[in-house]
Every structure is written in C-alpha cells, then in structure tokens.
C-alpha cells in the first residue's frame, strides 16, 4: 500500500543550522505514527515539510501521493499545530466553521459535522463562547477538532498534548484512537515517551535530523531495548543486572547470600533511545 508520507534522504538547513540531515521516513496508511525525539531533533521541521510550509533543500518528499503544495492534497491533510492556532475572539463554532470553509466543506455539510465534533471533544455546551475564555485543555481539544473539520485522510499533530491537564490528555488520546478506528492515518510528533508507547502503532526515533530507527514500540524494544533489568536488594546494598535469563541469575545470586527484595523491569523505550543515541532522553 502506498505510504501516506514518504521522505527520502531529505535535507534542510536554516543558515548555519542543519535541521534535517538526510532524513528518510515512510508513514503507512491507516496507522498512528509517532515522531519521537527530544527538542531540536528535527520533528517540527519534518512536519513543516510534510505540510508544504517549507521546501527541502535536497531529497524526495511525497504526501498522499503528491506534493503537499497542491491544494487538492492539502484538502486531504489536517493539522493541529503545537501552538493553539485559533482565533480567541471567535467562538468554538465560528473557529470550526472558518476552517471548514477554508477546507472546502460546503456550509450544509459543515454544520452537522461541526456539531458532531463539538460533542466529540466535549465542547458542545460552550460552543458559543469566545475561545479565549477556554482552559488550556479545552483549547487544545478544539485545536485538534479544527484539524478534523474538513474530514482529512491524514492528520498531523505537532505535540498534541503539550501543556494540557491529565483529563484533556486522556480525551485527546481517546480521540486519536477513534481516528485510527475510522481508518485515518495519524502522524504526531512528541517528546513524551509515554505518549508514543500508548498511542503509536509505529514509532520513528529522530535525533540530529535523522531517523535512527522505525518500528512498533514492541519491535523497537526487542531490537534495541536490551535485556530485562533485575534489581536485587540485600541487607546492606542493592545490585542491578541486565540479563536475558533473569530466573537463572536470581537463583545464582540467592545462593551467594540472602535477598531481601528483588524487581524485574522489562526493557523500556527510554532504554531504546539511550542505546540508539548514547544519551538520556531528557538531555
């Protein structure tokens, strides 16, 4: 199946700064795809390229089988930017109506769709209020709804849960899962490991303008996570061991002396990142 996004050896520089250094990526259709990386890794530049806001210096770029600068392609893409890109003086309904009109949705089709989206994001009761009066979480949900109002095939979310309260975060997670169930393709960038682990079918780990690895979370852990971690606590000290045979090791350690407590941690995504980049994810 043709990927919804295809980047081949794409480079992009801003003056002396290299934002992307030969980045290659394929986003399969109908999946939730995460671009995971720390700030400055190149995630936002990749998204801006995919949206046609900037052009690559080198390399190939294809979105939904065409150029993202083509209005017909743009009509099939929905964006929820990292900032709350809404008009604060307009109501939730007016904001959605504006983006529906810009997305080429006729008014008679837009009206019921807007009401459905307002209900889906829990904003129906405050649909007539200026958005500036909304909480951060409500604005974030509306930001996402505005990306969906023209019924796009590919939804691009740039840090969709940045700075939101736990309740809104869960609502956004649920919305993304619904989008997957509807068969849409979702590409989101994040620097939250948990977000990638909970939502993504596939994760691309990005750093220094390159994709270091792409796979499912399980696949990444299997390939790059290393062995499980066994932590053993004795009376006077504790020890940490990485081993593919934790039971055998535990028995061996128990034979050497009494163990007060032990814990077995399976490999995690942050260990994958550590192994791939040589630094902690928080760096």
């Amino acid at each position, binding site marked *: 199946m043709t990927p919804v996004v295809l980047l081949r050896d794409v480079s992009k520089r801003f003056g002396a700064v290299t934002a992307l250094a030969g980045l290659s990526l394929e986003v399969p259709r109908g999946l939730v795809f995460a671009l995971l990386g720390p700030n400055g890794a190149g995630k936002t530049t990749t998204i801006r390229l995919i949206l046609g806001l900037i052009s690559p210096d080198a390399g190939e770029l294809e979105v939904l089988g065409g150029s993202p600068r083509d209005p017909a392609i743009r009509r099939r893409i929905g964006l929820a930017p990292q900032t709350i*890109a809404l008009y604060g003086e307009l109501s939730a309904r007016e904001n959605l109506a*504006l983006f529906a009109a810009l997305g080429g949705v006729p008014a008679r089709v837009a009206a019921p769709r807007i009401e459905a989206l307002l209900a889906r994001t829990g904003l129906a009761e405050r649909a007539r209020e200026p958005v500036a009066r909304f909480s951060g979480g409500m604005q974030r949900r509306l930001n996402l709804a505005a990306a969906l109002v023209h019924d796009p095939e590919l939804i691009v979310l740039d840090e969709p849960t940045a700075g939101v309260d736990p309740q809104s975060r869960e609502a956004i997670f649920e919305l993304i899962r619904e989008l997957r169930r509807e068969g849409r393709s979702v590409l989101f960038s994040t620097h939250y490991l948990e977000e990638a682990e909970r939502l993504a079918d596939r994760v691309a780990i990005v750093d220094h303008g390159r994709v270091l690895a792409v796979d499912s979370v399980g696949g990444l852990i299997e390939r790059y996570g290393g062995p499980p971690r066994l932590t053993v606590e004795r009376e006077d000290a504790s020890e940490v061991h990485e081993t593919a045979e934790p039971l055998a090791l535990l028995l061996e350690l128990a034979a050497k002396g009494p163990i007060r407590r032990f814990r077995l941690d399976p490999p995690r995504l942050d260990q994958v990142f550590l192994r791939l980049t040589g630094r902690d994810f928080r760096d």
Partner: protein
Amino acid sequence: MTDPLRRAAALVAKDLRLWARSPASVFFTLGWPLAIAFFFGLVFGGGGRQGPLPVAVVLEDAHPLAERLVASIERHPALAVRRLDRAAAEAELRRGRIAAAAILPPGFGARLAQSFRGEPATLRLLRDPARTAEALVLEGLLTEAGFRVAFASLAEAGSREEALAALRAGARELPGEPGLRLTEFLAALERLLSALPADADGTAAAAGWPPRPLAIATEAFSAEGRRPPSAFAVSFVQAMFWALLGAMMSVLSELVRERITGTWERLRTTPASVAEILLGKGVATMALMIAALGVVALAGLPFGVRPEDPLKLLAAAAGGAIAFTGLTLVFGTAGESMQAVHGTTWAVMLPLAMVGGGMVPLMLLPEWLAGISDLSPVKWTILALEGAYWRGLGWSELAPALGVLLLFGVATAGLGIVRILRRS
C-alpha cells in the same frame, strides 16, 4: 460561489468579526475619530456661524452726531455692542469678555460735525492685546460709520449750516483762484443738499446721499474655489483620516497576532493559497475602512456635514481605503513583534499625517512643509474627501487625487505582498 471565493469570503468575515469583537479596535476606528470631529468642530467654531464680535462703547459726549455714530455701529450685525462707562469697559477688557472698547470723549460730536476742516474727530480704541485682528475689524467699522455719519450730517439743515460755515471760512482763507472756486462749489453743494428729501428719522438723506465711492463685497475663497460650510466640514474629513488610520492599526494588530499565535501558518496549511489569504485580508481591510468612513459620514449629517455628491464621496472613500490598505500590507511586514510593527507604523504615519493635513489643515502649514505634502497619501485622501464634501471638485478635478491614491495603493500593496510572499 467558487471555492477560492468562498474561502476569501470566509477570511473576510473572520477579519470583520475579529475587529467587531475588539473594543480597542472599534474605539480607535470609530470612537476616537468621532471624538476628534466633535471636539475640533466645536473648538473651531462649530456650525461656522460665529457669534457677533463683543465690543463696548463708552459714550462720554452728548452731541447728536456722537449718539448717531454709536447707534450706527449698534445696528451692525457683526457687532454685539454694549454701552458701558469707562471703568466697566476696562474691567470687561481685562476679563477678556470684550475684544475692544471705543471711547467717544467729550467734544467728539462737535469735532465730527466740522470734520471737513481742521483736526479730525478722535475716538480712543482700547483693545485686548490677544485680539488684534478683531480690534482692527472694529476700527474699520468705526471709520466707515464715522464717514457715513459725517456725510449724512451735511444733508440735515441744522448741522449742514454749521458744517458749511466752517468749510466756507476755510475757503476764504485760501488765496486766489482755488479759494474762489471752492466758495462756488460750496454754494452749489448747499443748494444740492437743500434740495434732497430727508429720511423719516431726519438722520440721513435719500437719493444716494451720502455718496459711497467704494463698496466691498466680502466672500471667503479657498484655493479650489469653495469654502467649508462649517468647522465640522473640516473636522469630520480629518476624522475620516483618523478612521482610516484606526482601521489600519486594528488590522495590523490582527496580522501580527496571527503570526505570533500560529494562525497565519495554520491558514497556510489549508487549501487556501497565500494569494487567497491576502485577498481576504485586503478585502476585509478595505471593507472595514469604507464602513468606518460611512459611519463617520453618517455621524456628520446632524452637524450639517453633507457631501455635495455621494458618488464622489464613495469614490474618495474607496481611493483612501485602497491607499491605506496598501500601507497596511507593507507595515504588516515591518517587524515580528507588535511593538516593532506599531512603532514603525506610527513613525511613518505621523509625519505623513503632519505634512498631509491630517493633523493641521494644509492651509495653516508653513509654505516649505505644504510643498512636500504631495508625497503624503494623507493629503490626497483629505483632498479627495473634501472635494466630495465642499470643494466642489468635478470628476475631472477629482481624478488626479483618486489616481494618486489608486497608484499609491497598488504600489504599496504590491510591495507588501512581495514581502509577505518572501517571508512565506
């Protein structure tokens, strides 16, 4: 409606809604200009009918001619004359309640009766130092009244004898032929005056006496041939400039806010092209400006500010809106922050307004400054608007101003669009 038009219409509606929901934008586009129109209209004479000039007369002489002169100026419509004693007149002058006081001292009337010979009758004029022009007006009116009263007295039997006797005595003192001829002339004059029928009040003669060798027909005349019917006609046109500026600042604020909040970038990810987004912005700006001018024009109606030709007003408003929309697009790229854009806009617009007659009427500017006003779109906007209101400009006379505004608007809009596209 085609897709591009539908998208542009949505963008226009969005910008107009945003303007209407910003109290500061509404105030600076409508409230502030109207306040300026009312305030300066009132300060500079309101409806244009200034009250009569307040003056005082101190009559210290009981001679009938003195009384007659006072009565003459009391009847003048340009003067509000109060008869006061000298102390009261001086007190009123000190308080600034009158512009001047004319003092007719004892013996003034008798001297006026013999004014065709010897020393002239002299009255004292005390004036407020701050109101020299008004005092000069009063001086002229008093001089005219004095001549009329003196000449009129010749037509009256009683005072004529006294005046002619004085003149005859003077003629006798002239040696030779001139004295002889003057004596003959006075005899003929006496016969003529005796034959004139007197007015009912006996103070003046009919049949063209006294003669008026000079008549002055006064009318105000502006460079283009008309005068503003009132101070409001000037202040409301200036208010229209401020309305354009207010609309421009509110659109600029929104433009910068769109860039800062990311809505501009979000708009660019929609199927709407940059050209459609800019078209929407431009149309919204023009519509807002024309609507603001319409509101100011309507507010002027109760103050008697009516366009001579509404079509010309519409054309002038459109011309101004085009020029200021172009400027808006240029200033929109003047910086990344609100402060940078507003600072640059004010730094450019204030001098343009100053030399263009937006702050001080062009006629009051020094010559060298008025000379460079052609460079300011503010001047052409005000000229076109005044042309529609009271300058009586025909379409051919209005065309240069409209042409300049159109060219200016197209050039600045082009520059603004190029800069926006480069940034995009």
